[in-house]
């Protein structure tokens, strides 16, 4: 089961599920040295990650409990949960929340279907396999801001090829619903390749013989897909869904370029940004930051619960 290489030299001591060596007293000198080396080697990365994420998050919590407006620095004072009350009772938060949830749910759903289709094409195609894979990687590599500009121009009246298809006078980026769909389109275009590649890796795990056997037994293509491929790919699908959901939930670049959050298209990240950098209200902005952090935590927790053993991170102990 273990894919991990055994350390050179040391005799393989029995290992518990958590990867923890059994008993302090039973540790050989070599094993102790190995532990120390392991901690030592991980220390720089851990220190950096804690210093740049844990500390600022703590600081954000602290800031969120203050009235702290950069335009009136003299009036800073402790207000407890007041900022949270202000944010949660504001329609701006809830509008942005539903917009974000809508964009996340719809784009991830579309990406899953489209990504599966792309993955199947990449997996099965006999012609130009390399070309197709390279082409699919390009949207992944493209700077989001660049892609967003490309879409924005495409939908700009008198400039864009897509705007021309619409009746004259239509400016889809200035209407809430059409703009939301265009944001989703931009998001889907940019990130479907990522989904497709993760699914492609999952497809590679499906044994050819099993599919052949099912074919011989008379299973249709759809049955082979739903009864054999999907169950075997479940871990890859869940990982792809988790990554994409969390990523879509923090959507910022696309919206900033396409509509700047106008016409009711602002996501939570846009709301946080506006409060911090346009209104310069660090207290409210920090409260929004912390709330977004909590939302992401809830999403991740839900997924990990759903995943069970297939959760990323669980892999190490196997």
């Amino acid at each position, binding site marked *: 089961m273990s894919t991990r290489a055994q350390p050179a030299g040391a005799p393989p001591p029995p290992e518990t599920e958590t990867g923890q060596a059994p008993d302090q007293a039973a540790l050989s000198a070599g094993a102790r040295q190995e532990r120390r080396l392991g901690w030592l080697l991980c220390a720089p990365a851990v220190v950096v990650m804690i210093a740049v994420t844990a500390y600022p998050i703590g600081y954000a919590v602290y800031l969120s409990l203050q009235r702290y407006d950069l335009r009136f620095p003299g009036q800073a004072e402790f207000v407890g949960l007041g900022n949270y009350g202000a944010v949660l009772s504001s329609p701006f938060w809830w509008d942005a929340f539903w917009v974000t949830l809508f964009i996340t749910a719809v784009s991830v759903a579309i990406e899953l279907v489209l990504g599966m289709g792309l993955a199947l094409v990449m997996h099965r195609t006999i012609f130009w396999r390399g070309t*197709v894979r390279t082409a699919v990687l390009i949207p992944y590599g493209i700077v989001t801001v660049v892609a967003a500009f490309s879409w924005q121009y495409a939908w700009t009246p008198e400039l864009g090829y897509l705007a021309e298809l619409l009746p004259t006078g239509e400016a889809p980026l200035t209407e809430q619903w059409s703009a939301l769909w265009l944001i989703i389109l931009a998001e889907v*275009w940019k990130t479907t390749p990522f989904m497709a590649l993760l699914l492609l890796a999952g497809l590679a795990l499906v044994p050819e013989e099993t599919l052949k056997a099912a074919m011989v037994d008379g299973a249709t293509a759809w049955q082979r897909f739903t009864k054999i491929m999907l169950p075997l790919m479940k871990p890859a699908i869940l990982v792809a869904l988790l990554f994409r959901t969390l990523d879509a939930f923090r959507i910022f670049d696309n919206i900033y370029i396409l509509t700047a959050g106008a016409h009711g298209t602002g996501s939570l990240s846009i709301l946080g940004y506006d409060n911090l950098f346009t209104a310069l209200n660090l207290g409210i902005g920090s409260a929004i930051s912390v709330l977004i952090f909590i939302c992401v935590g809830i999403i991740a927790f839900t997924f990990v619960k759903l995943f069970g053993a297939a959760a990323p*991170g669980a892999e190490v102990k196997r």
Partner: protein
Amino acid sequence: MAAVGKTHATRWVVLNVVVVLYALFPVWWIVALSFKDPGTLTDGDYIPRDWTWENYRGIFATAEFTRALINSIGIALIATVIAVVLGTIAAYAVARLRFPGKRVLIGMSLLIAMFPPISLVSPLFNIERFIGIFDTWIGLIIPYMTFSLPLAIYTLSAFFREIPWDLEKAAKVDGATPAQAFRLVIAPLAAPGVFTTAILVFIFCWNDFLFAISLTSTESARTVPAAIAFFTGSSQFQQPTGSIAAAAVVITIPIIVFVLLFQRRIVAGLTSGAVKG
């Protein structure tokens, strides 16, 4: 039979063409825009009627863009090097050594990978202003390095688990010193993984927009994605469409080159951690 094979082949060709068009059309559109002169910008043609380098000359004539390009390259390169070095060391330990706390480390880095950057922007903004690294290279390098570390640790440890570490022992038995064994046997096996990770991290840093617009205020550290968003055009009455298109093409080129050259490895890097486990 031959006819069946032929329809089958045609179907795949059509599917492939659809996929390639889907992936490349928006890219082509912005390339075409960048080569149009202002007069024909709005003609809606997919191929410029009169090709012109005017937009490119325009952006390179201003310090705004050149400066941003230098910032982008410098900041992304430095952040990549640091993240990959720290990531390699940690991933080596994770893949190779037995020590408690390993799962916590992986869990923590995954947590950070999922972190909403906006949650860090407000405290970082204030902290960086306080210690005086706001609007500097270091001010961007630090968050980039941190957010790409989990990616580096995750992909590298997946790569490292595939390395047959016993070879090192074999080399030592054959009389190599530990340093030689590492340099001659393990390093060449690990290098492709490290290199792939470096590309992924670089793409990540190159791509960032939120930190770039939040933690900078002048040209001194603003990277290209942020600079493009603030382009104003050569006069205030002119839409900067052509300049933005040209700048967009310029920052896309390095990534396209990476993708074309290292397509296979990038796919391996993106997928190794996710499914093998």
